[in-house]
């Protein structure tokens, strides 16, 4: 990568490859698919990846710090579902939002605490809390799978906001991407995330508050999930909790990993998320236009994700002598 940000073709890396594939795919779809290269469709592409991209931003921050958050989708769907359920049962808006915000912060803190202070691997912590959040909210707090947005509520109105004929979530995505970019690139704490992800022990030795920052990352990820959930509810006028059992979670990981954010931490940035989101957005849109059934789309996505992981494994191979024990 040179300073301008264009790929350096002599040293091809994953981001470069994916970017090239995305452009090729875009060109092929533009030539081959009728109705692809229209303004409406392009807006639809960007809109379709906005929520995914927002979630991927949160995931990216966690992954750069050598973690992973498998509870993101559960937090996204269940927090909003609970919020809407509270509204539907007559709780005042402010109080309901405070409840939900507190719940989201609590899960983020729990994730962070268990990872940072109890030294439990992040994948297990977040797998467990994701399962717990879904199970607890579904069984104790809400009564059916899908919860509608009450009529006239600001979440519903949010879904209708257009600016230059572009839906609001695209701007939210762009704004969040810019904020995360500034945070990662220009703040001290943003740089510390890279240090901690690259070598947690060394980071701790030079005085980086590694553990509190781990907690911070999981809290950030949970808050980002809440925002993504609100946007989803805004555009669909309801939230369906079955989304937790869908492949959305893997799409998020897919966007981050395929864009070139190494799972071993310390590398990548917002640009990688954008590249990954572009490829997935174009791919999903093209598949929808060709009219591939959803089930086959899952198959194709899984195949691509597998390919991305294999490439990641080849580019960053594990060394038998230095690999950490128990690093699964």
């Amino acid at each position, binding site marked *: 990568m040179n300073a301008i940000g264009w790929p350096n073709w002599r040293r091809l890396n994953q981001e470069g490859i994916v970017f090239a594939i995305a452009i090729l795919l875009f060109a092929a779809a533009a030539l081959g698919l009728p109705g692809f290269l229209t303004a409406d469709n392009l807006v639809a592409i960007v809109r379709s990846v906005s929520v995914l991209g927002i979630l991927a931003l949160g995931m990216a921050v966690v992954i750069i710090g050598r973690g992973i958050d498998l509870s993101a989708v559960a937090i996204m769907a269940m927090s909003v579902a609970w919020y809407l359920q509270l509204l539907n049962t007559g709780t005042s808006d402010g109080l309901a939002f405070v409840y939900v915000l507190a719940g989201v912060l609590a899960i983020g803190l729990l994730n962070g605490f268990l990872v940072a202070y109890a030294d439990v691997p992040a*994948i297990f912590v977040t797998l467990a809390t994701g399962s717990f959040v879904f199970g607890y909210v579904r069984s104790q707090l809400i009564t059916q799978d899908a919860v509608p947005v009450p009529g006239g509520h600001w979440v519903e109105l949010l879904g209708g906001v257009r600016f230059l004929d572009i839906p609001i979530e695209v701007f939210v995505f762009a704004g969040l991407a810019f904020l995360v970019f500034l945070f990662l690139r220009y703040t001290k704490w943003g740089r510390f995330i890279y240090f901690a992800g690259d070598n947690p022990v060394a980071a701790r030795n030079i005085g980086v508050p590694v553990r509190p920052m781990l907690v911070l990352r999981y809290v950030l990820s949970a808050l980002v999930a809440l925002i993504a959930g609100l946007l989803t509810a805004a555009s669909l006028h309801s939230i369906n909790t079955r989304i937790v059992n869908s492949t959305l979670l893997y799409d998020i990981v897919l966007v981050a990993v395929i864009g070139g954010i190494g799972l071993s931490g310390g590398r990548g940035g917002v640009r990688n998320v954008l590249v990954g989101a572009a490829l997935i957005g174009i791919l999903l849109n093209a598949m929808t236009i060709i009219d591939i059934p959803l089930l*086959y789309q899952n198959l194709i996505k899984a195949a691509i994700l597998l390919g991305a992981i294999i490439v990641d494994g080849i580019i960053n191979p594990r060394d038998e002598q230095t690999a950490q024990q128990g690093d699964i």
Partner: protein
Amino acid sequence: MTFRERLQAWRYNLVPDHLVGEILTKRWTDNAIPFLALVATLGVFGSIIPGFFKLTSLQESTRQLGEFSLVVIGMTVVMLGGGIDLSVGSIFALSCFSAVYVFFILEQSIWLALAAALCTGLIFGAINGYLVGFLRLRAFLTTLVTFIFGRALFDILVTAYAADVQLSQASSDVLDFIGDGTFWGLSVSVWLAIILAIVTHIALTRSRPGWHVLAVGGSRRSAHNAGIRVRRTVFMTYVFSGFCASIGGFLIACRLSGAGPGTGLNLEIMALTAAVVGGVSLGGGRGSVVKGLMGAIIVLTMTNGLIRLGYGTGTNQMVLGILLAVAVTIDIRWLKNRHKVLNEVYVAPVYLKMGETQSAAPGSGTSYELDNRLSAADHIGLGELEGPEDVILDRDDHLYCGTRHGEIVRFFAPDYKRSEVFAHIGGFPLGLAFDKEGNLISCVGAMGLYSVSPERDVKRLSAETARSWTSIVDDARLRDPNDCDIAPDGRIYFTDSTKRYEAHDWALDSIENRATGRLLVYDPKDGSTKTLLDGYRYTNGVCMAHDGKSLFFAESWACRVHRYWLEGPKAGTAECVIRDMPGYPDNINRASDGNYWMAWLGMRTPSFDLSLRHPDMRKRMTRRLPQDEWLFPNINTGGVVKFNEKGGIVETLGDLSGNAHPMVTSMREHRGYLFVGGILNNRIGRYKIEGADPDWTSPASYWGGKA
């Protein structure tokens, strides 16, 4: 004794504190937590749900348990090898579909359906294994992706063929039997799970491939460096997991006579939770099939119990989430802190009031009075040796000693300038003795009793004695064989100083001061080892009396010497002959004038004697201070004592300069010279004894003149 001391003596000598540490050293404590959880789960759900333990109810739930256990066994093996397999649910579902497809749609025999299911599982497992094992991808994400892939494939296939399966007329008695029948009261799936569990358990604990799996999981790098084919081993664990999941899939195909969209759903998180709740460690190496099965029963009882209690959608996930989080956290914390806890609680001091002693201070006028004679000793092997605990000379005047490096070194007569490694043992050779045939018998620290022939063949004579029923630590193993001597009939009497500490931790035993030292005898005629005496505070040197009818042995931390009778009216009993010495006795050997030489490895100090009367203080010390700052007995000063047959002290030699022989663990008289060794010394000393018989040698004293 004051009331306070009496209380302390009762508290610390009667309450068996040391058992806590000993229990924690046992590997079966790992099993205790999941086992208690199992009992609690069964108890709670058995009492809330009416008819939980009824036969029909059990049969239905055990059928499901059989299928689930098969999957968990596969998951356990993968986790033991340091990986994880999240695709078991997909393999399970796809295998189920394969069997259903072959049987109901192709209308082939049930055995062909079984073959199809197994093939599916093996191929899927091989793909996982190739990706994780050979391409070395991260197990969690890779199997997560293959799980999505398999699930998507299954969903496509099920929607495409569900109607055809419904319409199929195929049926088979075998299928019905596998699905619904029982054999000796148990369903086929339970039988299969039991058989597979036993086979897997034996394979893991008693076969080379199983050990390889545990080695790779325990330390991948070490396994790689030891030449184990790590990648192939990892590959095989995934193939095995695929195999197990496919049997489970075949069984559910028989039970439900079909495959639905819910087949194998959430199975991966259930299996993972089961393995972790059972105590199979994440990251590999620790765990067993039994643990996996315990976890399987706990998880299935909980999830099924909640469904039967009528809790709604999502409860399962909630409970699984809590179980997984709690179990993983406990597992990680336990693994991390167990050795810390063990280090803290293992030392369990006891109360002892040492008797008043005579002074050994120079100029005190007692028979124990130390002088400076040993500082004049010549040195042998200065700077070449490390830790000559015992020294001995053979009939040709060559000098032998053990070293810290696990060797027996020989110095050549007459000037002892040249040396060679006589034999490599591997452990730290402590006590030495020559038998009648000229074999060198040695007590090797942490290893046992060894014999080295004049041709240098090293042979193990004994490494264990009878296990006592009441001991929690394995007291059959010889932990710290310390000194030996040989009776005229060839039997070898030797000491094992402590049951509680490894040989290199011998100083810790002094802080605990628990009486666990033993006197043992090895009989070369039948190769047996027997425990003669038990319950001494660090048994140490052994020496046969000149007449061969009794032996002397030292009890170091109590500063006593005992005589054990081999024959005569008091045969088989011991009596104390020297008590309350000012030094800690070590090896004892014969002197030319009919008396005995005894080494002092250290000197008593008023402060340590006082601390022995304050076990609470020593306990706090071992828990709160780093080991460098503990109060140890003084082992920087010692000496050599000569005592007579009755236990009277004849004379005492010392090195007040502290340069040559500050502490002494052994000395051997030979042709008018005394050869002096010390376990912390870097030399052997040779001291000319005034007026000693210049022709007396130890081998001649034991076995007569030169043959």
